[in-house]
């Protein structure tokens, strides 16, 4: 029983990170119908920003400010910085291709991905950077009931992710900007004709999506310590999978997809074998896709002639 809960918590932690990145994917896809392959690299940039914040304040073993303040700085700087980076990328790489067939911005996104990954490689080198979280958030905090061990960092990751997802859902459902985003997702030309500033709305969408990815990057560093310049590639693929499995364009779907993949990986590793984890998880996802062809919470797209 404890083993099951342990694996479940591990899975939810990893799944929340996938979910946050998948949210950005889904949002951008919703407004632009673009699969932004550079999204995973924004996640990586966020992780590095968080690392440099720690170094700025003295390094993991000799922090000069209290830990909650450090975390606040990390989240704000990573979220804000990566958000601005996302807006810049949209402005210069994707805006000229807004009316091109969908396949063209795909390649631009690939180009941006290469550029981001290798700029970081050039500037910072290939060594793994270590957050060394246990130096400032000790392992003894958290829940320890018998063999069950839930770390404070894991709880924080899950908590922050849930809070952000709730905030995002409320934002999209209640605020004016959220309404504008939904309108632009539904039909960009009609939204433009109704007086919505499409460029601004798309920029805000990118900002929010990228900021989420940046915050997820910081949390990945906190939870799993090792960050390197190519970590975004795999995370991006998994988040893309999560977004599509949950129904692309749907925000709750992205969350569900991410959590599902995280839990599936964890359970398969725990109960079957880590050798076949990827194969079995793929198998599960294939079966799910065949059972619900438009994703778990996706809307069946209306086909019109």
């Amino acid at each position, binding site marked *: 029983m404890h083993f099951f809960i342990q694996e479940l918590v591990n899975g939810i932690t990893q799944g929340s990170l996938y979910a946050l990145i998948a949210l950005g994917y889904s949002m951008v896809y919703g407004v632009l119908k673009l699969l932004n392959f550079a999204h995973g690299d924004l996640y990586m940039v966020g992780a590095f920003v968080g690392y440099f914040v720690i170094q700025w304040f003295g390094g993991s073993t000799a922090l000069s400010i209290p830990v909650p303040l450090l975390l606040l700085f990390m989240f704000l700087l990573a979220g804000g910085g990566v958000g601005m980076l996302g807006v810049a990328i949209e402005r210069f790489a994707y805006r000229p291709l807004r009316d091109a067939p969908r396949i063209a911005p795909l390649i631009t996104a690939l180009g941006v991905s290469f550029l981001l990954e290798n700029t970081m490689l050039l500037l910072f080198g290939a060594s793994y950077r270590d957050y060394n979280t246990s130096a400032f958030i000790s392992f003894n905090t958290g829940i320890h009931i018998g063999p069950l061990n839930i770390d404070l960092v894991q709880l924080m990751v899950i908590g922050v992710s849930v809070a952000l997802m709730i905030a995002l859902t409320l934002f999209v459902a209640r605020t004016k900007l959220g309404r504008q985003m939904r309108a632009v997702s539904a039909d960009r030309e009609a939204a433009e004709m109704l007086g919505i500033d499409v460029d601004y709305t798309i920029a805000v969408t990118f900002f929010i999506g990228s900021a989420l990815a940046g915050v997820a990057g910081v949390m990945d560093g906190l939870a799993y*310590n090792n960050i390197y310049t190519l970590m975004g590639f795999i995370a991006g693929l998994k988040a893309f999978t999560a977004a599509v499995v949950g129904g692309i364009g749907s925000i709750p779907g992205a969350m569900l997809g991410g959590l599902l993949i995280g839990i599936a*990986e*964890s359970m398969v*590793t725990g109960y079957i074998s*880590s050798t076949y984890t990827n194969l079995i998880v793929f198998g599960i996802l294939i079966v799910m896709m065949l059972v619900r062809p438009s994703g778990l919470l996706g809307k069946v797209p209306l086909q019109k002639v």
Partner: protein
Amino acid sequence: MKVRISLAAMALTALVAAGCGSSNSSTSTTSASAGSSTQAASSSGSSKACTTEIGIEAPITGQVAVLGDEQLAFAQLAIAADNKANGTNISLVQGDTQLNPAQATTVTQQFTSNDKIVGVVGPAGSQEVEAVGPLMGRAGLAFISGSATNPALTTSGKNPTFFRVVSRDDVQGPEDANFVIKTLHPKALMIVDDQEVYSTGLVSSMIPVFQKAGIKVDHESVSQKVTDFSSLVAKVTPQTTVVVLPWQVAANGQQFGKDLQQEHKNATIVGTDGMQSSSFTIPGSYVSAFGPDITAIPQDAALVAAAKVKYPKFGTFGPPVYAATHVIDEAIASVCKSGQTPTRASVLAAIKATNEPTSVLGQPIKFDSKGDLINAKWFLFKINNAGKYVLVTNS
């Protein structure tokens, strides 16, 4: 518009033609200027003739750039040190393989077609060596790897110009396994490979030894790209007292150890040479390596100081490449000293005749007829509570 484009195309062709024409002359001017400066410093007239190139094949970009970057940095350090010591003018040509055998083939073709290259360091992976060995053999180009440990590379005979400065899986695996059985007496253990050939080779040589000793073995497998091991760690039962991690990325081992601590598991980690690094410092762990901790060897002080400036977080992939590059440098220098211009054949012969009494790896370097290092030493370290490597035993 069309006129513009044709004008541009003509300009481009003119550029390329100018480049092709002057490239030979410009490289000779740079080498001449460099040659004249060394001539002022050293009196050996052969310094000008000892201008040659060495290639390095490593995963400089790509998913395992952390390994290739370290190898490249140490190769550059070796070349700089040897150029200064021998008065040679050897330059390094980079070949990025991304640990992909098809790319390694292309890079090897590039090197074999470049007549200035007389020796190659690398490739890093055993798969790549299998892919490029015959090509190198046909070109008579010697290549020394600092990390390819698959036994078949030297026993198969398909790679006549291949050498390595590290010991083989079929030696290291059983030695490690026997140590674990004799010293740690586990009833059950978990052994995890990282889906690369280095790891799977070691695992397949260790598991039979463990099974013969009656130990319950849980064989797991995670990719090198995974950074989250909490699910795997949760599977470590209280009876599992040893976890064997023959991994190449030490930082992942560090994370695994942290996860063990966090989930309050008391298993001891036993790592192999990929884990010998300043990135892996879990107290109580054992690490077996074919190379000593160079920070503990007094003769290596200069290298350690230079490495700390250039590549502070080095592990176990850099020093063997340093040693390999040094072997080639010395071979080239000896050919130059005897008055000849370095060619592939002469450098190959000189490498075969290498007989260094000591090296940065803390042991003499001499190759047997198949290309393996003779008497490759084996070291075992335990990490103490301060995170320092303490030598426990060696062969």
